């Protein structure tokens, strides 16, 4: 089913007197604006002045509903269509945090602005080995893993999800409270993504699933001296299939960086063409919308 989300009308800038101004209601990738296509965010923001509430930042229509089943208050609804985005009712939410703990995509956090003073308490899941402790400092990171700043850990609880998940409550300024998606206990330096390591160890595995290109083919094509990612993609067809490079572009980029002696930053990213997933022409024409 095609679901059109109601767009919130309250902007963070206007409601709190802080942050950025109105952005015309356009969805933003960072998802930090209340006008960013999350109808329930504006309400959650208001309600969070009175109690801790769950805020859902789920943007991918994947078949998944643990948040709904975990909620004992019926405050989260996915509904019959398991691919639908969850909708939360901040009034009904009691801030227990079970949804935060069970969401496999780390797409739910708790927001609590009761303390006031321009600060907010944000609760996010934590599953790394190190033990977070209340009173210590931690680094808040956004949905892309970029560091937002430091905040004090107010509370660490066992969550109520799986044993490996802890809920960490961090005190952060209201300005970026809605951007926080995770915490890090110390600075880390990522040399190479784990999945790239995995791919290197897998021999002549498939790199591009859509176009059926294996690793040796990519290496051979990359060895011809292409200097841009776009040229390599056109020559090899890697990343030009159905999925538009969701699975293969990163390994490809690293491969070419190695072969061409340039950095991945210099190579830039591909230019995936819209639509980002196969869409029937009738859908674009306003016709049958049964299949998503």
């Amino acid at each position, binding site marked *: 089913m095609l679901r059109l989300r109601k767009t919130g009308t309250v902007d963070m800038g206007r409601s709190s007197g802080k942050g950025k101004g109105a952005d015309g209601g356009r969805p933003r990738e960072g998802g930090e604006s209340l006008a960013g296509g999350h109808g329930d965010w504006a309400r959650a923001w208001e309600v969070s002045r009175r109690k801790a509430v769950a805020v859902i930042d789920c943007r*991918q*229509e*994947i*078949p*998944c509903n643990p948040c709904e089943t975990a909620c004992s208050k019926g405050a989260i609804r996915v509904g*019959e*269509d*398991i*691919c639908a985005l969850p909708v939360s009712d901040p009034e009904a939410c009691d801030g227990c945090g079970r949804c935060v703990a069970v969401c496999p995509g780390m797409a739910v956090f708790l927001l609590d602005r009761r303390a006031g003073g321009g600060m907010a308490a944000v609760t996010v899941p934590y599953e790394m080995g190190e033990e977070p402790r209340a009173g210590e400092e931690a680094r808040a990171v956004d949905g892309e893993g970029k560091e937002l700043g430091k905040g004090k850990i107010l509370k660490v609880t066992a969550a109520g999800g799986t044993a490996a998940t802890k809920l960490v409550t961090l005190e952060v300024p209201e300005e970026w409270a809605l951007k926080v998606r995770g915490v890090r206990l110390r600075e880390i330096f990522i040399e190479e993504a784990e999945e790239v390591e995995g791919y290197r160890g897998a021999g002549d595995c498939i790199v591009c*699933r*859509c*176009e*059926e290109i294996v690793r040796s083919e990519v290496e051979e094509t990359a060895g011809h001296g292409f200097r841009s990612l776009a040229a390599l993609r056109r020559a090899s067809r890697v990343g030009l*299939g*159905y*999925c538009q490079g*969701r*699975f293969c572009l990163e390994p490809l980029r690293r491969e070419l960086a190695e072969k061409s002696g340039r950095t991945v930053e210099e190579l830039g990213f591909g230019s995936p063409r819209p639509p980002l*997933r*196969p869409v*029937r022409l009738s859908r674009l024409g306003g016709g049958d919308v049964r*299949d*998503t």
Partner: protein
Amino acid sequence: MVAGEEVTIFVDGRRVTARAGEPVAAALYAAGIRTTRFSRRRGEARGPFCMVGRCTECVMTVDGVENVRTCTTPVRDGMRVETPGGRRHGPSGA
């Protein structure tokens, strides 16, 4: 439709019992069907890979519509699911 209710779908003409509301790919998996399509270049058997509607490995022909991602398409009673290009490895599809 009641979620979880038993329904019947037809996979390449074969009757398969499924639960209403579950993704087609899940119903196929439960029925022991692992192959959803054969790759175009090498003719290799392919099955659901990402299970969240991203990789398109699980696309099949559903009720006559081609390239439907079965992992994000809920089962409906009487649904007809076909392997694109037809089954090549016998009716079990394993």
